[in-house]
């Protein structure tokens, strides 16, 4: 099959997948409901465990780092919740297609639908964790102000990146089964190298190097507006460049892999 045809089929796949968004929405929501079926608090277990973790880590690290807890805890709550979303999405991206094996082999569905479903599922999880941020912000009387609106374009960037990661890692991990654990350890390292529990300012003059870390750039464009500051143009530029690169790599791979995924899962 020529590359032009493969490319057209891949475009069709994405377009058709987007048209099926109500199905992706339902499937994503069902995933959450099934995960917590029979438990009393349901998805709010997530909220509770995040709250406990943020509360205890906040007090511990503000003592270790000698930072005022009023300054540190809101920062940590926000960073931790956003990081949960990023790392959760990346690790679930590895099983996007292998988990949907039954469906992929039984009925013709655009593969993009599975990526959309994974994104929706993780957005629901994020939605439950946002309660922690809201409570912390109320306790410490923090209001991001109009800067907060800058998260909207940032969330669009996140959605695009999330879908791209799902398609890329989903197909790649279906073919090569040892990618999953590798991704897991990369995310572990990234957690420590990215200012999630420590603040960018603690790096001093080395902070200029931070945008070379893709996770920092992506985290910062959402986090800074919610803390009432504006991310630098430099950070935004980095985030957009990483997004374009990711999308380009994903597309090059997806166009070739799309027809083979049914054989791989």
């Amino acid at each position: 099959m020529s590359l032009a045809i493969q490319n057209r089929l891949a475009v069709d796949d994405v377009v058709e997948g987007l048209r099926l968004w109500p199905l992706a929405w339902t499937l994503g929501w069902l995933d959450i409901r099934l995960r917590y079926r029979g438990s009393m608090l349901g998805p709010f277990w997530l909220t509770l465990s995040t709250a406990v973790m943020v509360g205890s880590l906040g007090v511990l690290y503000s003592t270790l780092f000698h930072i005022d807890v009023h300054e540190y805890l809101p920062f940590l709550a926000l960073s931790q919740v956003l990081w949960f979303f990023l790392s959760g999405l990346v690790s679930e991206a590895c099983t996007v297609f292998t988990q949907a094996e039954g469906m992929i082999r039984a009925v013709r569905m655009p593969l993009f639908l599975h990526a959309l479903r994974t994104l929706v599922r993780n957005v629901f999880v994020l939605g439950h964790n946002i309660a922690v941020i809201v409570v912390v912000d109320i306790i410490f009387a923090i209001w991001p102000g109009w800067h907060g609106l800058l998260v909207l374009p940032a969330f669009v960037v996140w959605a695009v990146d999330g879908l791209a990661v799902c398609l890329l890692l989903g197909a790649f991990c279906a073919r090569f089964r040892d990618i999953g654990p590798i991704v897991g350890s990369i995310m572990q390292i990234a957690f420590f190298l990215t200012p999630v529990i420590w603040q960018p300012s603690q790096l001093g003059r080395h902070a200029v190097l931070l945008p070379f870390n893709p996770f920092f750039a992506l985290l910062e464009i959402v986090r800074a507006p919610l803390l009432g500051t504006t991310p630098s143009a430099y950070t935004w530029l980095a985030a957009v460049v990483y997004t374009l690169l990711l999308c380009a790599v994903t597309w090059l791979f997806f166009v070739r892999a799309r027809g083979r995924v049914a054989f791989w899962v």
Partner: protein
Amino acid sequence: MTVTGSARIEIADVSVFFPLYHGSNRSLKKTVMAAASGRLGQDDHSRVVVQALRDISFTLTSGDRLGLIGQNGAGKTTLLRTLAGIYEPVTGLVRVQGSLNAMLDPNLGMNVDLTGRENIVLRGLYNGLPRPELPRLEADVADFAGLGDFMDLPVRTYSSGMVVRLGFALATAIRPQILLMDEWFLVGDAEFMEKAKVRLEDMVRGADILVLSSHAVDVVRNWCTRVLWLEQGRIREDGPPDTVLARYLGHPVPQLETAHL
């Protein structure tokens, strides 16, 4: 759901190769090591590839009922999956016009943690039914499957017979122009089979094109107007049921009044 326009299937020189990934072949390490030692090409050659379908060509138009026969592993299910668009051919062309329903797997996308009722709604959404039509689908399936109160319990709690009934009711609830059917529908208890037969025959009559894969000679003879005998992924014979079935069986097909499932 009615789709205007006549149904048509066109298959030209279709080949499907099936890469087999066993333990070591799936590994990234192997691939990287092979590349690093300048033997990337070898990976391609050492990969075991099953040629599931080779140079298949045929055309079906409205009114055709095609039966697929052949031994296990002859490529019948692969051909159905290719027609359904699940597998993409390596070479050749598959053109399908008209709404299509593939009854390949009785548990198609069924989630055992969801209740029977929730699974019905989900299937409706898979098939792109608009939400207002879902209650009608639900009533139809619930009525046919006859599961009573089990409808509101998770499928996990069903007996295997009940799962088959629900799967069958779901698969036959949506009437397509093109019906692809694997032989799994030949299971179930006797009382249910009677009901199932009536519903299936109704559905088969309603479809413009039927492609049926079966080992049951009677069913193929009774329902099909054309038979394709597949052998090792190639078309061995293609023609009217009596002629092809006689060669396939090695003796003339006994004349029967009615087919029994």
